[in-house]
């Protein structure tokens, strides 16, 4: 998938998700804003209540989207016997799409009424979604191949060095200038006792300082503006790579802990959802059937 095709793919998924959200908000906002006690007297209650034709349907469709999103992704990821269809990166994006739209539909299925056993499922779902968002942040902090394999520290350092070299070659910087830029962007030695948040704060300050210094150095050269912007972009990437190298260990550790949170919540959600569906069917609420 080319970069352009990928952008269209992502844009379409986001557009679908946002459209569904806006449509449901527009359709039911007077009903959903009505208090619980007054809703039965609302004209849309029959359709939009959780057991109504629309409300119930939202729950069923949302559940199916989640199930497809979860188990599709797990199958693709875990089952090594299956042929590797599509890059894991795209599967993950589709997993995120389905597992965002599905909960969105379920949110409207609940009619914003959070109570009873099923609320555990709901809040588990919320936890899974939120942890997914965090996981996505951690995930991108760990450099990978396009197939999702984590890169080792050596591979990452090599990539960084390659980038540094390209800085000198591409823009034919004088050696003195090149050295001074490399020197400025070089990672400061970390204090071994430093905490995560303190280190993050320090890195942000250093990044600002580094960019300011490079800018100052470049202003004294006779490079064209276009080349100056190119150098600045490369410097930013250099800093990003430096940051990731310095975070790598912490992130890899964090990512393992994240799995412990993301997966159990998903399982709780699924188990209670099954109970919820079973109870619903047991009491004869079969949607339109």
């Amino acid at each position, binding site marked *: 998938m080319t970069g352009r095709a990928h952008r269209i793919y992502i844009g379409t998924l986001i557009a679908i998700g946002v459209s569904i959200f806006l449509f449901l908000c527009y359709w039911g906002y007077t009903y959903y804003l009505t208090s*619980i*006690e007054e*809703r*039965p*007297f609302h004209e849309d209650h029959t359709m939009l209540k*959780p057991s109504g034709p629309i409300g119930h349907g939202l729950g069923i469709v949302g559940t199916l989207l989640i199930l497809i999103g979860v188990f599709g992704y797990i199958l693709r990821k875990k089952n090594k016997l299956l042929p590797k269809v599509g890059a894991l990166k795209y599967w993950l994006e589709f997993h995120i799409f389905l597992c965002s739209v599905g909960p969105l539909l379920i949110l409207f299925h609940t009619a914003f*009424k959070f*109570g*009873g*056993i*099923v*609320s*555990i499922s709901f809040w588990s779902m919320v936890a899974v979604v939120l942890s997914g968002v965090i996981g996505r942040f951690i995930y991108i902090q760990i450099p990978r191949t396009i197939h999702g394999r984590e890169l080792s520290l050596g591979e990452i350092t090599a990539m960084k060095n390659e980038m540094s070299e390209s800085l000198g070659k591409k823009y034919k910087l004088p050696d003195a200038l090149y050295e001074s830029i490399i020197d400025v962007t070089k990672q400061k030695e970390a204090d071994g006792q430093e905490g995560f948040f303190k280190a993050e704060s320090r890195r942000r300050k250093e990044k600002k300082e580094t960019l300011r210094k490079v800018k100052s150095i470049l202003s004294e050269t006779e490079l064209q503006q276009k080349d100056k912007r190119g150098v600045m972009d490369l410097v930013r990437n250099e800093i990003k790579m430096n940051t990731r190298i310095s975070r790598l260990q912490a992130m890899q550790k964090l990512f393992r802990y994240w*799995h*412990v949170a993301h*997966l*159990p919540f998903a*399982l*709780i959600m699924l*188990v*209670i959802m099954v*109970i919820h569906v079973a*109870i619903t069917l*047991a*009491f*004869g*609420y079969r949607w339109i059937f």
Partner: protein
Amino acid sequence: MRRRVRHIGSVFLLAACLISNVVAQISPGDLSKGHAQLEGISNCTQCHVLGNKVTNEKCLDCHKEIKTRIDERKGYHASSEVRGKDCFACHSDHHGRAFQIIRFDSDAFDHRLTGYTLTGAHKTTDCRACHTDENIESADLRKKEHTYLGLNTACISCHVDEHQNTLSTRDCASCHTTDEFAPAVLFDHDKSKFPLKGKHRETDCASCHETVVKNNKEMQQFTGMPFASCADCHHDVHDGRLGTNCASCHTEESFHVFTGNNDFNHNVTGFPLKGRHKKVSCASCHQTSVSDPEMVFKDYRNKDVSTCVTCHDDVHDGKFGTSCTNCHTEESFRQINTSEGFDHTLTGYPLIGKHEEVDCKKCHETRMTDPVEHSQCLSCHEDFHKGQFIEKDQVKDCALCHTEHTFAETKFTIEQHNAGAFPLEGAHLATPCFSCHLEEEEWVFRDLGQACVDCHTDIHAGLLDVKYYPDTDCNKCHTTDAWPDINFDHAVTEFVLEGRHTTISCGACHRPEEEEVVFAGIPSQCSACHDNIHDRQFEENGETDCRRCHMPEQWSPSTFDHNTSRFVLDGAHKEVACGACHKEQMIEGRGVVQYKMERIDCAACHL
């Protein structure tokens, strides 16, 4: 592998933590206050049917009072608006404790659906004024908070029996409406043992049905009241001296209207009631408020009842005497007895002639006693002659010519006529008035003209030369005595009358031709009037002149001298009659004596 085990372990740990809550948390929301006791997983099937949501049977298993009403087909839940609906369509639950499972808009509710239509004051009465615990008979229903069940449609189930169970019925609606308690408009007193008549209909109920105290409570008494005798309610003003049967004299119309009108034979009093007298109340004539009840109706003793003025005022102040019945009847004072009786001479205007037959109202258009102007005939009559007899701007009174006996006849004399511009003479004296004065059914007395032709037709017009009667003055020849008396000098014409012509009538010569008498253009020759019996024997130059032999005085004898002819008479011929020689011959069909002989020899006569 270790990690997977750890995951699964975490899940079950979490699940175990939650499981106790899970069981209790199946409910999708709190139940309403009325159903709060049904909270909890063990109670789900109290309302829900496995595999079949919530059924009406489940609801009605608990709500037996509603089921009973539905089974009896009574009340709102048995109405067409509710029948066939699921209970949860109106009464869903799990919407929180504060949820109004019965949302009831009392203003919009159609109470007819309950089988009890609200009317009158019920329409504006607050629901809870009736739907209170006090009015609910069933103890079970009374326990239910805010229930609308348990009321009875009988009025007495909500209202207090103001009559304290003294009436024969407990059905309030048989007398009262829901509009207001009093008056009891539906009560029909006529169906009671004492139907109301006359003044009793207008009398306030409380006048008879007094307020009494019973069970320490005031109550208007409607039953157990004596009513057999009038005196049960009314005070006997006669103090019992005239008996107890008030109805023998009085009616319910009025104390002063007596049944005596119907029952009492007034004829025995010497004053039989007639006309209006039959209808007036006794009290109109008789004094009812007498100190001594024994004297009631005896107030005309020793009074002259034969004259009306004993009772009635004489509005004429005695002017017409005291015999009112001469003019008035007992039917009505205003209905006047016109045919006889009233002497009109008393009024100063005696009725004479036709006036005696005229209906009074013709002249007396308003009241009989209103003055009527009568100084002139025209005060009542129209001027028939339409102002032809105006003198000094005043119409002469009709009485100058007419009398009250007839209008057609007149007392206008010939002498009065002769004193006018056209004195009557000759035949005019015998001519009726209408011959001259009636024109096309219109009487005309003015501008008739005085010339003969103003009335008479000039029959000579075009037939007689106007020089003989200039200005068409008929008097040149005629007189008023008689038309045929002609006074005309014929000598002024070209034909002077002589001999026999002076004695014959005009018409002998002036003969009518087609009803017109011709006077002009008549030739003067004799043959113009007379026949020529000699045929053309004596004609000379085409004309025969009779005067050669005949005279105007007489036709014969003729002045002819035979000796002047060709044959002189002599001898015996002198004695021979003319006819012996002159024989009659037939010429053109008529006999003509032949005087002119062709031959005069002897042999012509003597053979």
